C-alpha cells in the first residue's frame, strides 16, 4: 500500500481514538476490531504486535490518579495513613478508557512502523507536509541510533574484557556499588561527548556537500485510484465512528 495512505490513516485512526469520549465502549470495540483486522492483514504476526503494544502500559500508570480525582458515586475507599483515597465510578471508567485507547493507538503505530520501510515513511511524511526539518531530525535519529548502539556495545565490551578476577584467593571482585556507578556514569558521559563531536563532524560533512538546512529528495509516485479509494473510505468510516461516539456518549 502507498506509504502516504498508511501514514495518514494511522494518524487519523489515532486521532479518532483520542477524541472518542470516555466510556463509549461500543465505539472502542469497533475501533479494536478494526485495528485487529489490520494487525492480522499486515502479516506481522499477532505475537509481535501484542508484545510490542505492551509498551503502552507504563504510560497508563501516569494516568492512575484519575480514578481518585474525578468526582462521582464512590465505589470504595483506601485508607493510606492520614489520607483517604476514594475510587469513583467515573474515575474508574476514565482510567479503563485511557488504557484501552492507548493500547489501540499504539497498535496502529506498530503496524505502521512494522510494515513500512523507514525511508518510505519519511517520504510519506514529507509528502503530507510534515515540517521538513522535523522529518530530517527523525531521519538522522534513525540513522545514527544504530551507530550509537554499536558504540555503546563496544564500550561495554571493553569494560567486560577488563573485568577479571585476581589469582589471589579471598578477594571479592566487582568493586563497590558506588564505584561501579561511577564507572557507568563515566561511560555514559563519554558516549554523550562522542555523540556531540560526531554530530559536529556530520554537520560539517553535510555543509561540505552543499547542505543549507533544506532536505531535498525525489518525489513519490502518483497515488493510484485504489489508494484514493482506500484512503477516502477508511477516513469516512473513522469519521462515522467518531460522530457515533460523540453523539451517543459525549
Amino acid at each position, binding site marked *: 500500500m502507498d506509504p502516504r495512505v498508511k501514514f495518514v490513516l494511522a494518524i487519523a485512526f489515532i486521532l479518532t481514538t483520542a477524541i472518542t469520549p470516555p466510556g463509549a465502549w461500543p465505539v472502542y470495540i469497533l475501533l479494536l476490531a478494526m485495528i485487529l483486522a489490520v494487525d492480522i492483514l499486515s502479516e506481522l504476526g499477532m505475537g509481535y504486535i501484542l508484545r510490542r503494544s505492551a509498551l503502552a502500559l507504563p504510560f497508563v500508570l501516569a494516568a492512575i490518579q484519575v480514578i481518585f480525582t474525578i468526582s462521582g458515586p464512590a465505589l470504595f475507599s483506601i485508607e493510606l495513613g492520614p489520607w483517604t483515597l476514594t475510587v469513583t465510578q467515573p474515575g474508574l471508567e476514565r482510567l479503563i478508557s485511557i488504557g484501552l485507547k492507548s493500547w489501540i493507538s499504539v497498535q496502529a503505530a506498530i503496524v505502521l512502523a512494522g510494515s513500512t520501510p523507514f525511508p518510505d515513511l519519511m517520504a510519506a511524511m514529507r509528502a503530507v507536509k510534515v515540517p521538513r526539518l522535523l522529518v530530517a531530525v527523525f531521519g538522522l535519529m534513525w540513522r545514527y541510533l544504530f551507530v550509537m548502539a554499536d558504540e555503546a556495545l563496544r564500550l561495554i*565490551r*571493553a569494560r567486560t574484557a*577488563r573485568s*577479571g578476577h585476581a*589469582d589471589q584467593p579471598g*578477594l571479592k*571482585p566487582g568493586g563497590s556499588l558506588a564505584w561501579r556507578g561511577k*564507572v557507568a556514569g563515566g561511560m555514559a558521559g563519554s558516549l554523550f561527548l562522542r555523540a556531540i563531536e560526531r554530530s559536529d563532524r556530520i554537520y560539517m560533512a553535510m555543509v561540505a556537500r552543499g547542505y543549507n538546512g533544506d532536505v531535498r529528495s525525489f518525489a513519490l509516485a502518483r497515488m493510484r485510484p485504489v489508494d484514493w479509494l482506500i484512503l477516502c473510505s477508511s477516513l469516512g468510516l473513522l469519521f462515522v465512528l467518531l460522530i457515533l461516539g460523540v453523539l451517543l456518549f459525549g
Partner: protein
Amino acid sequence: MHHSIEINQLSFSYPDGHAALNSVSLSIQPCEKVALVGPNGAGKSTLMLNLNGILRGQGQVCVAGLELNEKNLGRIRAQVGLVFQSPDDQLFSPTVYEDVAFGPLYQGLSEAEVRQRVEQALAVVGMSDYARRVSHHLSMGEKKRIAIATVLSMQPELLVLDEPTAGLDPRARRSLIHLLGELEMTMLVSTHDMLMVRELFPRMVIMDEGRIVADGATAALMADEVLLSVHGLEKPI
C-alpha cells in the same frame, strides 16, 4: 608448562548466521610474539574476542592453562590483556588514572597495590606524567599507549592487540613498535602493518575467510609472494 593460548577446532557464527570462524586451531608458547594478518573480515577480531569469552564459539579454548568456561571466565579475563582497535572504546573513564586503575580495582585489590600497579603500568608505556589528564583530549598515539597501560595494570599473561599501529603518524608508530619490542610477554597482534610484522614478530599466522591458511616463520611466509597475494597481502619492500 602450559601454552599461553591453546585453541582446538574453534568455530563461531554471528547471530545473523555469518560464519566468522571455521575450525580454527592455534597454539602459542609463553613469551612468543605472533602476528595475525589477513584481509578485513577474515575473522581476526572475532578470534580475539573469543580468547577471553566475550564471544563464545564451539570448540575448545585454553588460555594461560585455564580452560575457557563459566567458572574460569573471570580469571581468564584478568590473564588476557585485550586492547581494542579504537582507544576511544577502551578509555571510558574521565581521567587516565581511573582508566588504568579499572582492572585492578575490579579485581578487588588493596588500594596500595592498585596505586603501585597503575604507576608501574604508566611507567612502562612512558606516560607517567599523564595520570591526571583527561583521556578525551589526548593524541591518538598517547591514547594507544594508555590503552595498553590499562591492560598492563592487570598484569596479564598475554597481550592481545587489535591493529595497534592503525591511524598513527610515523613517529607515534615507531615509538609504539619500540614499546612492543621491549615488553617481555606473550603477544598476539592483528595488523595490516607488514613492515612491523617483519621487524617485530618471528612468527606469523595468516587468516582468510574464517580459517587459518598459513602459520609459520615470518621470513619464510613473507618470501612466498603467491601466498601473500592470494590472501590480499603485500610483501613489504
